[in-house]
């Protein structure tokens, strides 16, 4: 029945909150819980979780990543679905654990059921209508791993049909205006340790993204990954720009849940 999400209560959903979100952006985690509960999903947050291991893996230290990957699979094995407000961490589990652990049945079981929040809403819960307004000029930053590994949207490089799951959700909100960028899906330059080891390139990339949003009139800058937004916000605050960052879960929670 439309508008009644009670049937979603049957599934057991494990909430995976990236370590830096837990530590620095707790409100993003809470907004994720709000949104999922709004759609009738009862989430569980397994306390033992820490990190998917991506920082170690991206540095080439696969031996050091292995125990964290194994830990992750063990912790989230009991759930029907694992949902996470980060495209990058989900991509680590779904696309890179295999390079670390090899192909295992356990990885298949957990990996294939680990979802980024937006795709969980559009593809599993089939959310296609909501009641809520967000009367702001919003700029969508398309984080690379969500875009090009999870395929949350059609990217500018490929030739094929248009689709965009995060945008599709935002467009359900009344009064929202999405800004038009010159470079629709260029990397922000965060890249994990890259942000420090290639500081000059990273900051120039970030500044270019912020300037593009500024030109487009973005008031609220959003995306599916808080890591990209943290890097962009660092530049925004250092340069006293008039742009606010909000994770897409915060926008959805503010518009739908608290309306």
């Amino acid at each position: 029945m439309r508008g009644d999400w009670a049937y979603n209560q049957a599934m057991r959903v494990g909430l995976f909150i990236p370590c830096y979100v837990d530590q620095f952006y707790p409100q993003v985690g809470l907004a994720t819980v709000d949104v999922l509960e709004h759609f009738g999903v009862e989430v569980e947050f397994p306390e033992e979780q820490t990190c998917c291991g991506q920082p170690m893996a991206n540095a080439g230290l696969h031996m050091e990543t292995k125990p964290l990957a194994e830990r992750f699979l063990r912790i989230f094995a009991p759930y029907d679905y694992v949902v996470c407000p980060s495209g990058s961490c989900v991509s680590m589990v779904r696309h890179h654990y295999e390079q670390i652990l090899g192909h295992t049945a356990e990885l298949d079981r957990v990996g294939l059921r680990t979802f980024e929040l937006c795709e969980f809403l559009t593809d599993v819960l089939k959310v296609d209508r909501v009641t809520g307004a967000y009367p702001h000029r919003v700029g969508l930053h398309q984080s690379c791993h969500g875009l090009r590994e999870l395929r949350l949207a059609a990217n500018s490089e490929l030739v094929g049909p248009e689709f965009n799951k995060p945008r599709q959700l935002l467009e359900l909100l009344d009064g929202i205006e999405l800004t038009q960028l010159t470079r629709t899906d260029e990397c922000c330059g965060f890249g994990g340790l890259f942000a420090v080891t290639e500081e000059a390139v990273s900051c120039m990339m970030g500044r270019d993204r912020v300037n593009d949003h500024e030109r487009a009139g973005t008031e609220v800058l959003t995306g599916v990954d808080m890591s990209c937004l943290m890097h962009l916000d660092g530049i925004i605050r250092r340069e006293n720009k008039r742009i606010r960052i909000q994770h897409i879960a915060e926008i959805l929670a503010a518009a739908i849940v608290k309306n």
Partner: protein
Amino acid sequence: MHVIKTADHSTAAAAFIANGDRVRWHDSAIWFARTKRDRASHGVPEWETLRELASKIKLHTMSRLDEYLEQFEANATRLGAHVHWARDAAEHNTIVAGILNQHGVRRVVKSKSMLTEECGLNPHLESQGIEVTDTDLGEWIVQLRNEPPSHIVTPAIHIRKEEVGELFHEKLGTDAGATDAQYLAEAARRHLRAKFLAAEAGITGVNFAIADTGGFVVCTNEGNADLGVSLPKIHIACMGIEKLVPRATDLGVFQRLLARSATGQPITTYTSHFHGPRPGGELHIVLVDNRRSEMLGAGDFRRTLNCIRCGACFNTCPVYRRSGGFSYGATFGGPIGSIIFSAREPRQHKSLPFACSLCASCSDVCPVKIDLHHQIFISRRQLANLGLVSFSKRLGLRVVAAVLARPWLYRFAGSTARLALRISPRWPIYNRFNIWGRQRDLPPPPRRTFRELYAARKKTPPLPYREG
């Protein structure tokens, strides 16, 4: 070999970025090539099918490379070409110099070939008193500046036309302060025409060699390859062994992809097919391995042999556009160069796979579907396994991994760090060791973590909301 030595990529990149005007111009000029590529590829509805087909043809060819190479040799020989095999760069250079010396050649014109760059052919020939002129305009400009190319398709992309004006004024005596592209190109044309007329041999690269005919194809926009091999009697074509395709009909797939990916053109202005020597002429084909068979044997990087050197991964790479070709300190950089050269010389090129934010754009523009960003990810593992990830990085990440494996330690470390950030004034935090903080603020540290707030919230759950 012209290789500009650099300490590591990030140092060279920072120096490149320090010149704000230049780096912005460099980024937009190359981004423009990327947008042209997008327009051209989006005009071909079956683009993704073509990429898949091209990838499969190349993977198939590589799986039977020995057979196809021998087939090519037999057919090319039947057509009257001399086929030479070179194990490495030195053998390649010796073979080419041998052919030239045997005919007493002292002046050579050469069209663009990244293979001869890789082998360092020019300095080798020059050391034997042979004059080599690169006839591709961009290549000639960098040759006059005594520089290597900074991009595999647009070798002088790092040079502005004002600088070309100054260079031509100094070397060719054009008017001082000239910046008009037409005027400068005319001057280049006049000078190069004399070189073409005086040349006793022409060297070209090879874009595609065809096993079942023994012919090969050279693609240029300036027609310089054609002119260079039409006037002199001797044509030497140098090719990496991965340039092979099985059948002439396969060419259609690659021709549709190559120029669209490279410059956004439907096809290069000149696509020249060579089948044996022209009447009265002599054709030599040099097949070069130079560590390609090692890549073929190393499963992880085999797909790099799919590469058709279109440069699309350079144009899309946000790091390349902002750091320039020389920051890589290799024959060529960008995503594909970072993989190839860090695999070949890991000690020398260990910073290259880290000159990447893993944005994955390269993998999606690649016309032959090389999974570039995955290979970069794997390159990093290779470097770590060789002990080439710096001690401090490795140690630091080991500590982090140990903390993350213990939830109590993770909670303790997190709360300590956030407390320190919260109570400290700004200056001790934004010190010179805080690289993050040079141009960016740190996120404001919250008092409580998600897990703490979530536990508190579970004790007093908010009223469930129901829609409708």
